[in-house]
């Protein structure tokens, strides 16, 4: 079976959920191999084995992390050539899409982003225009390079695991690259990330500076916290929480929108959620047009009541 190369970027001590999803998909489509950046810990190597990865490729040169995208793309294309990969899968973060973009130029290969499904002949399903169309797309030149959205694949380890062998790939580090000169890590919240979460509770200008009720409800539901641009612009919550056209696109099972009017730029990031709940004081707020369940009311009383009730029912 043909090799399907999965790009894995600095997973740390264990694979991310999206890595596991990509490895599962790679095994459905062919023989999974990993193009791996970062420290390969014994635990991660073992985990890769459980997904049937028998070959892990690492760059010959350290320090690719200090270059913006260019170095990682040079590595991924070298790994693809070394493995004669039939397809390359990456996650759907902004950086992964850009690594895919440059690898595409290097390999003269088409790139399809935002995939929600990939069939055995590498036909890709994705949605465009903020979820208003579902399209089927194919790569017509080179090795299909596909970036896959989180939650598109159900994680499944291989029936039989293996012990991966590591290989080194020579990388010609591009001279023309921007250098990352400082990096400040943000504290981890303990909540699922927005992309991966099955439940998102989002707050907007209506929270009036207090995300407490949003966070409490997110926590009883095991969900992530999102926000409108008005809330991030006001500095009530970090920009990374923004959902929408210029923030994250999410499609969780449940999206609870509270104190958000539902401007087109906000809707475009959340309207593919399975179920949408809206809480807003204004009965005419546009968000109600797309809500499966809408409450005209004050979020500062409605959300805590719901949170309390869920706690009670969960015992």
């Amino acid at each position, binding site marked *: 079976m043909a090799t399907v190369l999965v790009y894995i970027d600095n997973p740390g001590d264990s694979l991310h959920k999206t890595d596991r999803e990509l490895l599962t998909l790679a095994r459905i489509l062919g023989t999974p191999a990993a193009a791996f950046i970062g420290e390969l810990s014994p635990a991660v190597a073992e985990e890769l084995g459980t997904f049937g990865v028998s070959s892990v490729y690492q760059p010959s040169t350290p320090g690719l992390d200090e270059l*913006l995208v260019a170095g990682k793309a040079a590595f991924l294309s070298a790994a693809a050539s070394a493995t004669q990969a039939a397809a390359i899968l990456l996650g759907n973060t902004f950086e992964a899409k850009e690594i895919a*973009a440059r690898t595409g130029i290097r390999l003269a290969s088409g790139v399809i982003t*935002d995939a929600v499904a990939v069939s055995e002949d590498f036909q890709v399903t994705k949605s465009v*225009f903020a979820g208003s169309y579902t399209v089927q797309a194919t790569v017509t030149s080179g090795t299909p390079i596909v970036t896959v959205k989180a939650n598109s694949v159900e994680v499944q380890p291989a029936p039989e695991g293996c012990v991966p062998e590591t290989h080194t790939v020579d990388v010609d580090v591009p001279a023309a690259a921007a250098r990352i000169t400082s990096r400040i890590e*943000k504290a981890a919240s303990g909540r699922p990330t927005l992309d991966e979460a099955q439940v998102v509770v989002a707050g907007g200008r209506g929270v009036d500076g207090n995300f407490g009720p949003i966070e409490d409800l997110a926590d009883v539901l095991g969900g992530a916290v999102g926000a409108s641009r008005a809330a991030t612009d006001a500095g009530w919550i970090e920009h990374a929480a923004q959902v929408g056209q210029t923030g994250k696109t999410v499609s969780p099972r449940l999206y609870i929108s509270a104190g958000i009017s539902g401007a087109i730029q906000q809707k475009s990031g959340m309207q593919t959620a399975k*179920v949408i709940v809206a809480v807003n004081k204004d009965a005419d707020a546009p968000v109600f047009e797309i809500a499966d369940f809408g409450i005209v009311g004050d979020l500062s009383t409605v959300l805590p*009541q719901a949170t309390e009730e869920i706690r009670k029912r969960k015992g």
Partner: protein
Amino acid sequence: MDETKSALKIAVLVKHVPDTQFDRHLQGSDHSTDRSESILSELDEYALEAALQVIEAHGGEAAGHRVTAITMGPAAAVNAVKKALQIGAHDGVHLTDDALAGSDASGTSRALAAVVRHLGDVDIVLTGMASTDGETSLVPAQLAELLELPQVTFASSLEIGDDDGAWRLSARRESDNYAETVECSLPAVVSVTDQINEPRYPNFKAIMAAKKKSVCTLSLADIGLDASQVGLEGSWTRVEDAQPRPPRTQGTIITDEGDAGLRLVDFLAEQKLL
């Protein structure tokens, strides 16, 4: 301005895209974008504003700096350039050729890279963080690869400074997990997010002044590209099929009478979401 440094030439890429305020459509057997109700992509306004601020910080037009707005697309796409001229770009370029229709990201990048090469001596290629139609964010990175320039993408702030007589660029970027600073020398390809600034509006005077600014029209032959490298033929991906998604319909709307939180939990339980 420092005598040893050359005047800055900034190329801002501006795309003519369907207005996101209206329903957008795919059309024809190739499922290409219907561009009838199109405008300058609002995300490109941040790039244009960033370009104008960069040169204003270093003496502006008087110091010889120039901002050129570039677009590619059918006849109507020139409107994106015209809007950019009203906002403050100094001149414009419109690459137009029937063969360009249906270009995917790779075809678009090849064409735009050829325009930038044709202009020559461009110090910064500035773009928005994504087009609001394709939404892929592939083009800036592909341009950097094709032009063999450093890429500084998703900048949320931008500074051009002096480095021993040469221009040097420093930018901040933010992701889920970190905030970082990146640096490179020029020339470079830069994309900016909507966090970077508040785009200005053209005033009456600027609109009148824009009428005197020049827009240069280029064809594929002018930039030395073959039709087979762009458009549907030169694209490396193809849309095989497209189905409009049924629009979401309104569900149950209730007004809080003191128990809405409880009714919300009932709803979640019914939907098996607890």
